[in-house]
């Protein structure tokens, strides 16, 4: 059974920062651009959460935009 392609994600490593996660997930992008993309694709972490941007071990962090 082949699974349909879904939005790719990673989960944070212990004590991983946004910078480290962005560098790991999007190594081909400049760090600031990678961080901006991660922020924009993960509003559940970087907009809806208090405190904003608190990365939790159980988080799903998308590394690509929503599929159209």
């Amino acid at each position, binding site marked *: *059974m082949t*699974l349909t392609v*879904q939005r790719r994600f990673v*989960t944070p490593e212990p004590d991983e920062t946004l910078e480290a996660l962005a560098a790991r997930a999007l190594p081909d992008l400049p760090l600031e651009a990678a961080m901006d993309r991660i922020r924009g694709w993960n509003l559940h972490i970087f907009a809806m959460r208090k405190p904003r941007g*608190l990365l939790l071990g*159980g988080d799903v962090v998308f590394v690509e935009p929503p599929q159209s």
Partner: protein
Amino acid sequence: MHDLVIRNARVVDGTGAPAYAGEVAVKDGRIVAVGPRVEGPARAEMDAGGKAVAPGFIDPHTHFDVQLLWDGAAKPSLEHGVTSIIPGNCSLSLAPLRAADRKAVVGMFQQIEELPPEAFTIAFEWTWEDWEGYRRALEKGLAINVAPLVGHSVIRVWVMGADANQRAARPDEIAAMQDVLRQCLQAGAIGLSTSFVDVDENARPVPSRFAQFAELDALCAVLGEFGRMLQIVPEFYDADITIARIDQLAELSLKHGIPTTYSPVFDNRQTPASVDRILGRSAEQFARGARVWPQMQTRPIDISFSLLRPSLFFARLPRWVRVLRQPLEARIASLTDPETVARMVEDAGPDGGERLMGRLVVRGGGEAPAHLAGKTLKEIADARGQSCALALIEVSLEHGLDVAFLSANGGHDNTDRIGPLLARPDVHIGAGDGGAHLASFATYGDTGYLFSEFVRGTGALTLEQAVAKITGETAAIWGLKDRGLLKPGQAADIVVFDPDRIGRGEERPIFDMPGDGMRYTRDSVGVEAVLVNGELAWTPAGYTDAKAGRICEMAG
């Protein structure tokens, strides 16, 4: 000699097989014979009058953990035909829990499940810390069967103390959590629950959310030793994240050979494709051999509230939540402070809350004037020349905050769509939340609603399918031993009901919680008798003195 024979029955045995006219015999708490005709004498007989005789219903998503300590029937679940319940969902249970950590865990229960503080302080005595002790406390007075989950957040607190909601666990701590989970499973817990969405009373993520996937994987390895369930609360408001969770569950299910379930799953008019995508992903994972059960409730999302207490209705309005969580005096001070009120109205939206609140209906309340009952907030606001948000605040203040509003059909209300979803073989009916959200809605009667709306109403399920969904299939999904079917050897959990009448009563407030606390309830409709382990537990005349409930044993 049989203890009881139920004659003149329409036997619906929980397998989905066609109903037939027959009889059911019970002895020593077990079913000993089922068929068109049961031979042998009986100490007692019950004439079912041609009504349906089915296995007792099983409710797989409840939060009766604390109520069971003073009400072993989990009222009113039992009178709706529910004979087995699964508490301990959403990462929360009442064991294992050290005395020093009770306040923190009770705070989570109060915040997440909207339970009043008195429920934890005046109705029972805390006599346990470990799971075995909790089990003993529960077993003192059960009238209903209980199959409890142990909560991941609580296990984290047990092992990590105050660090549980601060950081990832070290390898030694993960190993300790595995040991604790193993002890709980050996002492009667039927699985593990975790949450990816909930926050505590300080709005901080609950401990389970700080766990790395490796921690959950390690705990699922222990579940795999027993073949037990993992239940999660995913980020149900977002289909992409929910699908990611389904994939994680599938990985855990395949790796460890365990069943998993996620709840809730709602249909939503605003994003109708979401539920199809989510269930489609589950189906793909089932096809791979993973067991990833979506739990779907039968009833629409109705939420009632007053400004007397916080409500999940305001979940997306943090300022409202902050104001309503204050003690009464401070709350009234905030609600009469022009600057605070202006900000609350602003937060309600550029339309003054009309989109969010305009369709709210006044349902009455201790102090609510009769002339407001049944009116929408928009009608009231227009008459007052105010915004909806301001009218909500001021009408409440004028009546001591004791004005109840109903947000009806807030989603999951398209019966033509939901019926076929509930009928899918890969959808698990549940997610009811019994024993929680007491002042927001009454989940009781979700089973009756299944029959009234989706069997008699839309015809999406046959009577036999509907019964199987909430009996035999539920027992099989969870691995409950000897429950869910009418066949010899099974526990005699039996409900007699009228298929032409079964439903749910109107939602109404009652004040039977500890400290005269309020909750919404619904009376049963069309249920005529409920037996638990062979003993008559409820009839329309009321509850009996039977205390035949048990902690459920697991198959395998």
